[in-house]
């Protein structure tokens, strides 16, 4: 049972474009929504996270948008760069339970 559904599986974006990755969750008890970024040969690393008391959080070129009523959240990467090419995982957590999405492979073409 996949508790966090992530789409798309893969994404190709031109340099300077906007990359958008979407996630949907089922468990309304989730109260922490992090995004992890993973480069080849490395472990994932926390990129940005949001709690449901805000609808948007921005850190540099990375923005999380959160829609509590729709149980959806998304990552927007503005002015995408080739260095952003990586695998991105959304996740949802409640207390000690954290569930990851299946991941999105992003390729930014220069």
């Amino acid at each position, binding site marked *: 049972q996949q508790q966090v559904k*992530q789409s798309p*599986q893969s994404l190709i974006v031109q340099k300077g474009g906007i990359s958008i990755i979407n996630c949907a969750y089922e468990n309304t008890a989730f*109260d*922490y929504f*992090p995004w*992890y970024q993973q480069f080849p*040969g*490395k*472990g*994932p*690393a*926390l990129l940005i*996270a949001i709690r449901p008391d805000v609808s948007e959080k921005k850190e540099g070129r990375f923005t999380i948008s959160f829609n509590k009523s729709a149980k959806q959240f998304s990552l927007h990467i503005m002015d995408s760069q080739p260095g952003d090419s990586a695998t991105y*995982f959304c996740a949802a*957590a*409640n*207390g*000690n*339970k*954290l569930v*990851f*999405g*299946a*991941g999105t492979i992003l390729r930014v073409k220069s």
Partner: protein
Amino acid sequence: DAGITQSPRHKVTETGTPVTLRCHQTENHRYMYWYRQDPGHGLRLIHYSYGVKDTDKGEVSDGYSVSRSKTEDFLLTLESATSSQTSVYFCAISESGQGQSPLHFGNGTRLTVT
């Protein structure tokens, strides 16, 4: 990188043999985790530890056991490896539980069971 070392980084083993993967941290974090990463499944929790000798099962614990005799070390054992356990294994640490503080991951162990 957070002070997390996984060993070995790569291993090829035969079906039915025992395998132990090691995770060593220098951050003195209370929580340690073992995940496996497979295409289409993201990261799935195998086992975790919330203190020395305190461990609990995750989502995909069948066929795996863990031990934590020191704060800094967390071992994952495959008692009798199967081809379905071919995967990339990641160790992670956190100060608090998964839903309360960020996870810091090691660089993974690629395990191939032939």
